[in-house]
């Protein structure tokens, strides 16, 4: 039985890296007495799979992970038992059973929403002007360094939306998939916006046929007959 968990990563837990989160969840699930399903092989481990990793220091309002259980429990019971075993800052929002064969989180999630909130007030109009100019550009080049070296990368195709709020805060919807990731810092660099800010990842989405679905909406298995994902069915 597979279950999808939606949670908030806030408070001091924003400083936990991906591996630390993996260990934390495994231990919380053991404490909660969830009947975890283990992988076979020499070193059995519980079957957990996470959505796209969140960089250390960033708060996540809607993060996801899937877990495999050996026998079913009700969504409510998992939520209650597991919720009580999480450290301050981590908050369980939703537990949902996922049908057998539903695609993995990382293979379907392809967009991430961020909010940039500035420590000192900014003039919304100035930012709006820069944003329109940026979105009008056919190419947005940023310098990106990786293990292979430093190169220039066009991030324009992965910048889906930029919305400026009246207080100057900036909402972004950026590509975040197995194929590519645009980092919010890169957009800020391209906008040449200085100052100290706080980043929040406000959501993860499946962007499909012009629609934005949340991972809790997108839980149906692929239909083999049509050979592609059916559009999701909204629960509740």
């Amino acid at each position, binding site marked *: 039985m597979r279950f999808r968990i939606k949670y908030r990563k806030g*408070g*001091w837990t924003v400083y936990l890296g991906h591996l*630390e989160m993996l260990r934390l969840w495994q231990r919380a699930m053991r*404490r909660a007495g969830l009947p975890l399903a283990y992988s076979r092989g*020499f070193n059995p481990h519980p079957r957990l799979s996470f959505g796209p990793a969140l960089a250390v220091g960033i708060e996540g309002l809607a993060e996801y992970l899937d877990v495999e259980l050996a026998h079913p429990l009700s969504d409510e019971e998992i939520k209650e038992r597991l919720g009580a*075993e999480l450290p301050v800052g981590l908050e369980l929002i939703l537990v949902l059973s996922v049908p057998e064969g539903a695609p993995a989180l990382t293979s379907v999630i392809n967009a991430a929403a961020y909010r940039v909130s500035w420590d000192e007030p900014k003039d919304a109009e100035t930012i709006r002007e820069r944003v329109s100019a940026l979105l009008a550009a056919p190419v947005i080049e940023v310098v990106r360094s990786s293990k292979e070296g430093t190169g220039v990368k066009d991030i324009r195709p992965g910048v889906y939306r930029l919305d400026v709020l009246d207080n100057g805060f900036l909402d972004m919807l950026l590509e975040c998939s197995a194929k590519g990731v645009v980092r919010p810092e890169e957009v800020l660099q391209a906008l040449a916006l200085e100052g100290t800010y706080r980043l929040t990842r406000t959501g993860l989405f499946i962007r499909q046929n012009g629609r934005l679905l949340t991972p809790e909406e997108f839980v149906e298995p692929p239909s083999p007959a049509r050979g592609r994902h059916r559009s999701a069915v909204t629960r509740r």
Partner: protein
Amino acid sequence: MRDGELEKLLSRVSRPSRYLGTEWNAVHKDWEENPARMAFIYPDLYEVGMSHLGLAILYGAVNERAGMLMERAFAPGPDLEALLRQNHIPLFSLESHRPLYEFDVLGFTLQYEMSYTTILNILDLAGIPLLAGERTAAHPLIIGGGPGAANPEPLAPFFDAFLLGDGEEALPELLALVADLKKKGTINDRRRVLQTIAGLPGFYVPSLYEVKYNDDGTVAEVVPREKGVPARVSKRVIPDLDTAYFPTRPIVPFLEVIHDRIMLEVMRGCTHGCRFCQAGAIYRPVRERDLALLLRQAEELVRHTGHEEISLTSLSTADYSRVEELAQTLTAAYADRGVSISLPSLRVDAFSVRLAEAVQRVRKSTLTFAPEAGSQRLRDVINKGVDEEDILTATAEAFRAGWQAIKLYFMIGLPTEEEGDLLGIVHLARRILDVGRKLAPGGRPTVTVSVSSFVPKPWTAFQWEPQDRIEVIKRKQEMLRRHLKGPGMKFNWHEAEVSFIEAVLSRGDRRLSKAIAAAWRRGARLEGWTEHFNFTLWEEAFRETGIDPAFYAYRPRRDDEVFPWDHLDFGVSKAFLKKERRRAREGRVTADCRSGRCSGCGVCPGLGVDLILKGGSPGHAV
């Protein structure tokens, strides 16, 4: 520190999860409601400190009591240290992020000599004067405990008090006293406070003792400076571990620490009586825990931590008289819950291998044995009760059971060691590799020989012995390195310079404190990490302070010499150690007191305690 301030620092350091203080089972007690406040400080990085069982025990033992609280602190990583210094932020505790100077007591655990410079660094980062004599009522009391308290003299000027022996009862007593003195308002009279602490059993207040020296630089005597101060301070012992506090809700770290598992303490102490081993001497007598109690504790620990491994800890777990039953019951109980059982320390015998096999369903890791010396003669000198046959049988059994890699620990520079003993290491390792080639599945075994250098330690039969000179150790290491080459053979060794500093500090006196401070001032800290240890700093520190380290490391002690720790009492009598030293020279072994023959070390009668075994005689003699 304000949280906003900490957040700014955390986003700029590596592994910020070291400093959060919000791990599962961390205790956040109300500051105002608990007037006696202590921080437990492990003078190394979080990963090392959180692997220490003593911290978990004392943290729980204090925090379960009303009126007192304990928080934690560790050495910051070099990146955070730089930020703290740049921004003039004092070092803080994890739970409340308060500066360490706001606590009443700071307790350092003294696990190894190479953490001493880090202790000074932490005091300095906390804005606390290093010398006890320069501190006032406005400063916390600085206390130390753990194995380093077996000879705390090199640290004496920096500390207000040391606790000798088991802490789970003594520490709450100290904090209750502090609460009482605060209520009465007498806490501000530092002198009175120290005198009162000196009256608590197990607490040694170094400033109340005067050390007199002979012309040749050796200690003449250590005497109390005033009336009412005990001439000798005895260690504290919990006579029955079944009644001792044990934490079943230990903190579960966020980041991966060195020993990232449940530590189930099955017993305390060791009966083998290896003549170089300080832990074996100072933690006597052996006290085993009840099997049913251990099973209950294991269950609670699994439920409250969610850990995936239970380690059965002690100095020599295979000795626990009901170890088979314990290991088998736990393995059966937790197999399908994804929790495995491990044994950290094994004797070199077939029984231990069978035990390891029983708990370790997957034999992917290395099996480690410690023959300690390469020849039977030398193994008899050090009283390591194993012979070559034991070793070969055990390793053969291990290969047959499916292990591919065997690791062997040896010590070089042991008293009476000759070239033949060193060649014995080579010979033994080669024979084991040959056995492995025949028996190991796949036939491609590896044998790793890991060699440390002998460090003479207080409270052992070898406390009179000199250490080999650095050049000699290096020559021996080089010789072994030349011989232990080739397919399947690996060789590791300890830095000779580190062992030298350990030897200087472990048998040092108060005068050495100047060298420790000088080494720290030149930048020494976190010296347990190879990348941070710098021998040059120590050489300069000795030169600057006019201290001759050879006097401490290389000088054979006179038979009747007064030692800097002779006014402390860890139970083991000096007469017994002298006898053991004689027997060592004669190559005579001394029986394990588990066998029912007390060898008269003095601990049981001297401290009014008893050896506690839970399963009668050990039924596993091979």
